């Protein structure tokens, strides 16, 4: 019986064996890249909110400190989303007729909460603590980006575990003096590594990379 396949098909079959390897590796790479992409992480995607609250206006324009609204950031795991009452402290006096702010006034009248869309949404098995970070010289903008330049809030970082560990393994690359934590316009000095190392020593920082630091 004559051969069905020509001799050259041997090459093809060899190629396809190697090709399959590359294909598998390529697919894996693709999946990993997709998972890191803003499509999945939602980094950089501004969210629609019931009230188009502008951090840019309130932080950069009015100079309101982060902690005026996010009051529990220094003491609790969660920074705290301000109650309607906090909004009304000012907005019962200014822009008190603005139709944009009607949901806020309605919430105050009816005692029904405003339902904000969560922008920074960690998985439920991750236990992040704001107070542990802001008290040790991690600035707000280090993770949240230039909030003072965001008209609508978006998530700046990918919030992947890789991103967390990037800092937990080398905190000196990101630390700033405690008094600069709330400064949205803070620019790291050119000798950040030297400053960071001295801060690590001064604040006695032991960054932890054990699983139970965040997962439990």
């Amino acid at each position, binding site marked *: 019986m004559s051969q069905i396949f020509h001799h050259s098909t041997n090459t093809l079959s060899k190629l396809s064996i190697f090709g399959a390897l590359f294909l598998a590796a390529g697919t894996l790479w693709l*999946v990993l890249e*997709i998972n890191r992409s803003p*499509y*999945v992480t*939602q980094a950089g995607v501004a969210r629609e909110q019931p009230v188009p609250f502008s951090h840019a206006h309130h932080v950069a324009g009015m100079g309101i400190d982060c902690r005026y609204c996010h009051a*529990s950031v*220094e*003491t*609790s*795991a*969660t920074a*705290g*989303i*301000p*109650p*309607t*009452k906090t909004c009304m402290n000012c907005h019962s006096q200014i822009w008190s007729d603005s139709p944009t702010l009607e949901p806020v006034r309605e*919430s*105050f009248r009816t*005692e*029904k*909460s*405003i*339902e*904000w*869309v*969560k922008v920074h*949404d960690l*998985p*439920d*098995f991750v*236990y992040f*603590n704001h*107070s*542990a970070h802001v*008290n*040790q010289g991690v600035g707000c903008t280090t993770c949240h980006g230039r909030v003072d330049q965001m008209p609508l809030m978006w998530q700046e970082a990918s919030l992947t575990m890789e991103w967390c560990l990037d800092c937990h393994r080398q905190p000196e690359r990101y630390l700033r003096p405690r008094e600069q934590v709330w400064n949205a316009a803070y620019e790291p000095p050119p000798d950040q590594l030297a400053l960071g190392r001295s801060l690590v020593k001064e604040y006695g920082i*032991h960054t*932890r*990379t*054990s*699983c*139970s*630091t965040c*997962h*439990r």
Partner: protein
Amino acid sequence: MSGTPGGSDVDLSGLRRRLADSTGRAYWKSLEELAGAPQFLEFLHREFPEQASTFDDPEGRRGFLKMMGASLALAGLTGCTRQPEEKIVPYVKPPEDMVPGRPLFFATAVTDGGYAKGVIVESHMGRPTKVEGNPDHPASLGATDVFGQASVLDLYDPDRSQTLTHLGEIRPWGSFLAAVKAALDGQRAAQGGGLRILTETVTSPTLAAQIQELLAAFPAARWHQYDPAGPDSIRAATAQAVGAPSEVVYDLAKADVVLCLDADFVGHGPANLRMIRAFTSRRRLGGEQSPAGMSRLYVAESSPSLTGALADHRLPLRASEIETLASAVAAGVGAPAGAAPAASGSVPAAWVGAVAKDLQAHAGRSVVMAGPWQPAAVHALAHAINQTLGNVGQTVTYAPSVEARPIDQLASLRDLAAAMDAGQVQALVVLGGNPVYEAPVDLDFARRMDKVPLRIHFGLYDDETAERCHWHVPAAHPFEAWSDARAFDGTVTIVQPLIAPLYAGCKSAHELLAAFTSKPERSGYDIVRDYWKAQGVLGADEKAWQRALHDGILAAPAVAKAAGPGPAASATPPPTSAPPAGQGLEIVFRPDASVRDGRLANNGWLQELPRPLTKLTWDNAALMSPRTAQSLGISIESTSLGSYTDLVELIYRGRTAKAPAWIVPGHPDGTVTVHLGYGRTRAGRVGNGVGFNAYALRTSDAPWFGGGLQVKKTGDRYLLACTQDHWSMEGRNPVRAGTLEEYEAHPDYAKETFEEPPPSLSLYPAFKYTGHAWGMAIDLNSCVGCNACTIACQAENNIPVVGKEQVGRGRELHWIRVDRYYSGGVENPETHHQPVPCMQCENAPCEVVCPVAATVHSDEGLNDMVYNRCVGTRYCSNNCPYKVRRFNFFLYSDFDTPSLKLQRNPDVTVRSRGVMEKCTYCVQRINRARIDARNQGRPIKEGEIKTACQQACPGEAIVFGDINDPGSRVAKLKAEPRNYGLLAELNTRPRTTYLAHVKNPNPEMGD
């Protein structure tokens, strides 16, 4: 499988031979282990018995494969989706002191038999999630029992009744008020002659005042009380001895010798937590405690109890013989011995002699205590002995009763039943309690109650009594309503709500009683506050009230705490009131260790909690001694689905009940113990049809024991879920015990038997701990086996309930189990308890086998368990010699019921199926303390972190801390000579270690 006859018959002679052959102390967990039965070896050598985890779903293999294929395909797709959008819902106006993400703590009280035990309840954003003891409260001292821990689950029980009903139909509160008004108007002419109120034991001053007010308006109305597990005999005996029903307060911290006559101070009573603390304070060794200061405990009991398990000398006796024993001891110490017959054959004279001598040698520093299930005569003997020995005023004090109106409750219920039968009752208000289910069967309560024209029931559940009442008013849970209650010593706690009632129709008892007054709409808060204001203890300003709410204790001068007079020395005990022993066996009734008198039957945590000693779950049984079982031909077969046992018929005074038989080593011969609280028909989805109803046999003339029981095998078999052989460790003496004499000669006797390999033996490099290194030491001398740790862990760590069928297969999820070991013969073995959480090994066998690094070592020495990484290979649990890892075979956590979600601890992941889980030393508490300390710029203080099990423990047996700090309590305990590591010879180097058990037997006893 069901109905398989045969199994391993109890072969007593074989067991005895085996015991005689063993060298040294032999420890065993079950008769199967002692006999070396193949079923036990199966448990020992495997994690789960063979076929326990085979897939026998009716779906079948083919369906399973189809499902698998579909889920694989879907899993691939779901991997690419984003997280669903979530909402943040802040407050409109934030409540005072509320910081999002931080819990608040409120002091209040839970009641046990009417008496308060102070608790501090943790609340997350308005949701009560966890109960802890109140360190300032005299009945708690910071500890809790299983009931306190489990009370938070009752709050969220979806089966609680939610609406006011009339004949089963929903009605508004207004129509109830109208009905009450009409009834009261009808009663006014007769001055309330037809009005009866039935409550449980009442210590609440406010409630008592309300009832008195009602009785003042209707002088002919009557107030009845009934608590099926109430201490009627103590009331009667103290009334006879002191002149009025009194509280007897024992100070076990001052007692060198304690004799318990069927008294279970560990498991029952309003002061049990305090007594455990006091008792264990005299059982610690090492440090500053000298061996000479160790107290000695004698227990004579008719049913094995936790107190008996602690005893240095334990004497199993039939309940009817306890009085004989008490009388003999009284004679031995020179107290008036009463009319009981002299020591007979089954009451060993040597035992009595040695006890009497020991008591006399410690006159003024000893305690004789009788249990509420013994008749007043035994209590009178105990009083007389204490009086003769000069203990009264020293270790035993009498105080005025804390109850609002201490009466003979059984007589009270009997009166009520007779009055109902005679048609004298026109309106009955059942204010708590479930008399239709729990009244003595001879009173025929349900039929007689049906004769009452207006029946009102108030309770948490639409239960057996509610079904037969016209009106059912849903009760608010104690965490939802204002009230007050008194502890055993009279301390008043204001019970404050942590949450508004989950169901709008719920009322407190105070609000219900207000409906019978001219001001029916008064709030519970106003009623309680106005009462105390009227007492003049609140002062002019708010301070005293706020202080009371903050501390959980009301500084009330109205409460007398002074010790009353002792019993008159010449008082002769009343003649025996024990029922005459009939032919046949004796039956002993006891409230259950989990569901009590049945009120907690719908609590899944308690149902699944292995009962102390028997280790049964989800059932009660007819408990008997090995010899009695042998004579009845009982056989028990342990299988991969649970333990098959004989279903027997209990015939007692013309009534019958069918119950599974269960063999308990150390049970007195010729006696059968049955536990109350099971066989409920309207408990709820959890408790309905669990176990058999022992109330069906209980009569009012012999509420606690009686003779004339016949037991017949029915020929049917019954499946029980017993955990005693689960998670068995290969026999290297996991528990180690000795006597005080041995300890004094060789303090490190626990280490002598087994070599611990040198740390250098491992192939892996050693971990270095520069910061903290968490460790735990568990003192087996202080552990009383009460299970509080298991429930505390369950509440703290969101551990689900798996159900009887799954427990039978060995899939219970408790992270900390209390292993119970016996040593010695089957007739009267010594008992040892050993709580076993994860050992957090240095050389952890689990870590090296995980293919996905889901369990890894932390820099502080914990074996972290990363749920989100776990893929469920179960290699880790296969490799764990301690068998402390738990696998979610199915989706055990309830992801659907909204009310149950509120209970969960937000700081701990709720695990799904296919995930391994285990103890992590409450790493959420470690992290919280670490972050708080860092934020405040200080180191973590010694004792700042308490694990959930440690915090609940009434014996302070569990100590947790930093072993890198040589000053810490845990480091000091680990330096004790008694300290040993469980299976340390495997070179796992466990972080959790044990202090060996030391008993203090009387050398003169010579048994």
